[in-house]
């Protein structure tokens, strides 16, 4: 795994964990609440799929499911996506800025990943 900063491209996929308790998915759609930054946050945390070795190890399947989002969407909406490695998670990245105005767009585009499919990764 290279340790130099990764430049996120529009073709990259971004992953965000979605809590299962309580459920945040209604009729297959993720609530926009998952994609809204809190006041004071620099941006919305995601992981860059290309930098993850095993997706199934990137989250706790008992408490979360995973959603996949194309980096192209926030970029098209004028948001910078920046690699932001943190301790224990080199794949961590941020969608920079207040994502409240675009949260529903992100939620609509994000696809929950089937846990059964994940176990095969």
């Amino acid at each position, binding site marked *: 795994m290279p340790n130099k900063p990764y430049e996120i491209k529009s073709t990259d996929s971004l992953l965000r964990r979605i809590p299962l308790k*309580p459920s945040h998915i209604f009729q297959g759609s993720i*609530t*926009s609440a*998952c994609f*809204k930054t*809190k006041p004071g946050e620099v941006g919305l945390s995601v992981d860059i799929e290309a930098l993850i070795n095993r997706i199934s190890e990137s989250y706790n399947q008992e408490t979360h499911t995973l959603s996949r989002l194309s980096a192209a969407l926030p970029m098209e909406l004028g948001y910078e996506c920046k690699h932001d490695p943190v301790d224990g998670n080199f794949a961590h990245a941020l969608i920079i800025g207040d994502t409240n105005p675009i949260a529903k*767009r992100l*939620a609509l585009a994000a696809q929950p990943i089937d846990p059964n499919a994940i176990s095969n990764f």
Partner: protein
Amino acid sequence: MIEEIFNKDKTTTKAITQTGGKSGGVESTWRKRSIALQGKIDSLVQQKNILSRLEEFQKLEQNWDGYNADPLSNKALEFANTVAKYLISAKVKIDFCAPMRNGGVQFEFNLGKECEVEVHPNGDIYFLTYDEAANLLNKERITLEQIQKHAKQAL
């Protein structure tokens, strides 16, 4: 914006009521009563579901989403309870109710447009509307009294 949205719903409700009344007679009266009763049952079921979900939110601790989300504030839960009752009394079908990462509560429903009501941890309430592509059209701060007023008008 909130006036337009609720009034649109009111027009729809009236149209349905008028259509139901055209046939007249005993059968129509029973049908109306049956629809009204079903509506009340649906409202009670919806209210019970929302209230039990809000109770579930009370248990959330710091970092409940794995991204350092805040626990829900008592004020947000209290106001959310009231908002839910007003919306349900106005026959708004709440599609989803979610905890917000800042310690608030969010309601999602459709009144011809996708709508959200955000109840923030300090008690501030916002009414949001979206277009079909989920673009934010409007976000305005509203009060509990405004929701109650418009809910009553929508009946």
